[in-house]
């Protein structure tokens, strides 16, 4: 953000970090208490691990569902929270949290890596195993090239114009970037460990045509060494299946080895982490910072079980305390969705 620019601030009652099953159900529990929520997730889609890791796998321990798939659960939760109109901010990571309020009347300013700014009276961390981030291959010195020559994502395509680019991987990310960057790049070399690609067949076919046409190169092997100076890459060494070494001149390397979960910037929020988990009390699931809650797999407390059902329970209890921050003067009376006409009105079923 440059000086003089006016920052647009999104005001919300609650900000939920993570759009997995627990973050989604928190929308429901908060919504019943008239608390509006925005959700931020680093993934480009809703559902967290359920959608990213096991969309087709059956889950057997969701109460009331003898069997439901990861994606099925996410779809159902989305339907369940529809009446509360949650606002999603996908493909963004929360990076900064600033405390504006007091312990009795918390207020937080939260910034994402895409430059969005939120002001929220409560922050619910429902980040599961952390944020999904690109896997970094264990090639000696790779970190010294990151940012200038090694990229795990492309934010500005134009920056890649005229470069000799080496793309590593055999999935959709690797093939999509091969196709997208081909018109801009000086030369593309695709490196994959085997001559089979799990990416969409039409992208693989397009790539193979270009290779046959000598418009780009395909190397079967794995990158073992990077060469360059002062963080600027000049070549990468690829070890073929037969052990032979090929040095390929390149200005940029883009490895696509999928995602792994890392705690990320939340680690710097002063939450007194215990083994990369956020300690929370078991009455309100609040952290050591009043107004910041931790629910689902990311939290820890005596007896914690990393189950989706535990996260649902934690969301319900946290919502009660969030209500006190959002509506300090309102008395909260406990109601059931089966009998309360006011709750049914909120759900649009009365």
């Amino acid at each position, binding site marked *: 953000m440059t000086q003089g620019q006016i920052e647009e601030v999104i005001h919300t009652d609650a900000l939920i970090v993570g759009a997995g099953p627990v973050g989604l159900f928190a929308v429901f529990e908060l919504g019943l208490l008239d608390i509006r929520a925005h959700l931020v997730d680093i993934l480009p889609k809703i559902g967290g*691990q359920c959608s990213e*890791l096991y969309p087709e*796998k059956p889950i057997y321990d969701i109460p009331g569902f003898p069997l439901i798939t990861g994606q099925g659960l996410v779809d159902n939760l989305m339907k369940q929270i529809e009446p509360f109109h949650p606002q999603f901010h996908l493909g963004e990571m929360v990076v900064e949290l600033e405390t504006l309020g007091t312990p009795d009347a918390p207020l937080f300013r939260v910034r994402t890596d895409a430059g969005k700014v939120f002001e929220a009276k409560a922050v619910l961390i429902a980040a599961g195993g952390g944020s999904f981030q690109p896997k970094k291959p*264990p090639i000696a010195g790779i970190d010294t090239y990151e940012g200038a020559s090694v990229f795990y994502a492309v934010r500005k395509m134009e920056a890649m114009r005229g470069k000799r680019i080496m793309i590593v991987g055999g999935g959709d990310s690797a093939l999509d970037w091969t196709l997208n960057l081909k018109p801009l790049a000086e030369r593309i070399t695709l490196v*994959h*460990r085997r001559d089979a690609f*799990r990416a969409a067949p039409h992208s693989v076919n397009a790539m193979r045509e270009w290779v046959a046409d000598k418009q780009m190169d395909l190397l079967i092997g794995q990158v073992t060494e990077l060469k360059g100076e002062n963080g600027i890459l000049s070549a990468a060494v690829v070890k073929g299946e037969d052990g032979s070494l090929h040095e390929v001149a390149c200005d940029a390397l883009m490895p696509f080895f*999928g995602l792994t*979960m890392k705690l990320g910037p939340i680690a710097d929020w002063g939450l007194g982490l215990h083994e990369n988990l956020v300690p929370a009390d078991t009455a309100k699931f609040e952290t050591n910072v009043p107004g910041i809650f931790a629910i689902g797999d990311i939290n820890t407390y005596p007896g914690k079980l990393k189950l989706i059902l535990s996260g649902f329970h934690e969301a319900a209890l946290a919502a009660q305390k969030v209500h006190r921050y959002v509506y300090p003067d309102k008395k909260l009376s406990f109601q059931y969705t089966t009998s309360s006409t006011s709750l049914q009105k909120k759900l649009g079923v009365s």
Partner: protein
Amino acid sequence: MVQITYTDAKGTARTVNGEVGSTVMETAIKNSIPGIDAECGGACSCATCHVYVDEAFLPLVGAPEQAEEDMLDFAFDVRKNSRLSCQIKVTEALEGLRVTTPTKQG
């Protein structure tokens, strides 16, 4: 019970007992074997339980299926004896199985 030995990238070996019917990944996690992350919990969808199977056991362990071969694309330094340990079922025939974990999983 079937004895399984896990050797880490630095050469430290740990031998534990695996239950027939469980997986080589589950046995590692149960026994707190370092070098196996198993982020997805055994759904063959993360490639963070990658191991190298001792050559002598390769014929007994068998080759990966298509989904596992695809997932191995997300592992680092994949070799001919690479497997995802969540996809190797512990059987009596694997008594004495030896696997090595790679330098980096995720």
